[in-house]
């Protein structure tokens, strides 16, 4: 069984498949959005695939994740079905949230995806709560909060870090530092260079990872998970990464200096390319193996789009359902 840095090929296969799914899903949904097929907002995570996959690959199915408005990557990596995701983006009946959530609120309870959240930073408290639940139950479950560099300035982050730290909650605070909080760059919105510094203030372990190197992220995430399962959590992981598109699809990103996007999209920095190069060079995968995965994913995406398009539209009165468990009050 081939392996790379101790990571079995099976895991690597999964990781690459997930990254391809994210990449292609994001590309496709951006296209659909720009031609007007999808209503609402879209916050694309193109360019951040490795940061997402690296952490989630270290988790078990029973572990929880909570993510943000830019959460397609995390939920796909955790096993969310592309079909149902696409149907949700299309606001159709077969969507995960039956049209009630949309892109920013994708949830799949069966995969312990406690949802994407539209309130920046609030996911940290929810994930902390999930970690508290695990602790009370006495399970070895881990809870991961994904958030960006902007979120970690919210009070939510600090309160939950503090509470998680005093209680040793099994919570991984997985920060994807893509250098921008909407239009405000990191060098403006905080003093330290690294978000990982924050952890010191709470007496919490931290890691800094190359967010575009899925292997690096994965290995560090595994460490964090081990620590949490041991009851020595929480842990803060900062993955340095970059988003290709603006804050939302349609944001021209005028706040970013010329050439920066191109730099991060270049082969040296771009996560998919890095991985493929590494795998091929180390003879873990052949090109055709990787291409096959890519093509298989392409088919999945096409089916997902079909599924989304053909899914039944929602009856408007369904707006009144699910307010309370017993119906409307």
């Amino acid at each position, binding site marked *: 069984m081939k392996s790379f840095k101790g990571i079995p090929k099976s895991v690597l296969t999964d990781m690459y498949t997930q990254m391809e799914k994210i990449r292609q899903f994001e590309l496709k949904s951006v296209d659909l959005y720009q031609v007007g097929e999808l209503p609402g907002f879209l916050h694309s995570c193109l360019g951040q695939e490795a940061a997402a996959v690296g952490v989630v690959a270290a988790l078990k199915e029973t572990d929880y994740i909570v993510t943000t408005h830019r959460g397609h990557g995390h939920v796909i990596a955790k096993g969310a079905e592309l079909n149902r995701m696409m149907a949700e983006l299309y606001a159709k009946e077969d969507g*995960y*949230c039956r049209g*009630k959530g949309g892109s920013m609120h994708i949830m799949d309870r069966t995969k312990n995806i406690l949802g994407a959240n539209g309130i920046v930073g*609030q996911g940290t*408290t929810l994930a902390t709560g999930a970690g508290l*639940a695990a602790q*009370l139950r006495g399970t070895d479950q881990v809870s991961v909060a994904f958030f960006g560099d902007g979120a970690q300035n919210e009070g939510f982050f600090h*309160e939950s870090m503090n*509470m998680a730290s005093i209680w040793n909650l099994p919570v991984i605070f997985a920060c994807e530092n893509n250098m921008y909080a909407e239009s405000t760059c990191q060098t403006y919105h905080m003093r330290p260079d690294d978000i990982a510094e924050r952890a010191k203030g709470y007496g919490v372990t931290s890691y800094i990872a190359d967010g575009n190197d899925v292997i690096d992220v994965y290995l560090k995430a595994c460490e964090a998970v081990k620590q949490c399962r041991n009851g020595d959590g929480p842990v803060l992981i900062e993955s340095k990464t970059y988003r290709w598109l603006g804050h939302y699809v349609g944001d021209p990103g005028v706040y970013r200096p010329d050439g920066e996007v191109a730099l991060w999209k270049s082969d040296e920095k771009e996560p998919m390319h890095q991985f493929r190069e590494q795998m091929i060079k180390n003879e873990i995968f052949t090109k055709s193996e990787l291409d096959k995965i890519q093509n298989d994913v392409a088919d999945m995406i096409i089916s997902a789009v079909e599924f989304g398009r053909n899914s039944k539209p929602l009856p408007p009165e369904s707006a009144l359902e699910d307010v*309370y468990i017993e119906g409307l009050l």
Partner: protein
Amino acid sequence: MRTITYREAINEALAEEMRRDPEVFLIGEDLADPFGGSYKVTKGLSTEFGCDRVRNTPISEAGLAGAAVGAAMAGMRPVAEIMYIDFTGCCFDAIVNQAAKIHYMSGGQVQVPVVFRTQQGSGRSSAAQHAQSWEAIFAHIPGLKVVMPATPYDAKGMLKTAIRDNDPVMFIEHKLLYGVKGEVPEEEYTVPFGKAEVRKEGKDITLIASLRMVDFALEAADKLKADGIDAEVIDLRSIVPLDKDTIISSIKKTGRLAIAQEAVERCGFASEIATLAMELAFDYLDAPVKRICATNTPVAFAPALEDFIIPNTEKIYSAVKEMF
């Protein structure tokens, strides 16, 4: 039947539910022994259930409320205490954007069986930031249930119902009711949501109140008897869901409606009830609906000013008399 205090009734409800269901736990500030909560409601509980299940938090309303929601989403049944309803300002997001909406936004996939216990009201010169009454604000958020028990009996019965309810519940107590005594059975019982209680029957006017206003309304009703006015006093106790049937049948019987409300007049819950009366019992109204509410001001510190601001028996009495 034995009589216990409102505080003791709540304490019993928490203890009994925690014994009954291991998923129930408490989270909030200063809950554990020996302090036992800022209004001493949780005294004895950490001793019985341990400091994990009666979990003290740092002063972090946002964090603790959010954590309670997260824990509920992950399958537990947390009862989070927000010391003063005024502090819900700090964790407003967790309540209104998270707890209230996650079931809906997830298309019914994820439930949030959290109870936010808090207390409101004035009368001890606690001043503007510690004396407000905010039930209307939470009643305005679809997805939340809002209850306000006025008696020890209701406090215990409704808290049990709240804890067992799979929807998020705002359980609003009153700081001046904690010491009030009332009859509470020893046996197991619950009080359902959505049922108002007619505290006193009458035929001349429907007088509606919640929490501390219920006692004032009953006193006013007593005074009104001497004036030949037979008031029917209804204790709402459940705001969302609301017992419209009891309210409307009463109005149809009496033809007059007055609502005593400790909260500020403007956009208070009394406005909702007055509108319902107009919508559902218009042809039975013999006089305009009257609201006896706090003035549209913050609550002042000085006792004399506080008395001026907040409704009381005399104000309710005079207001009702004017309606005849």
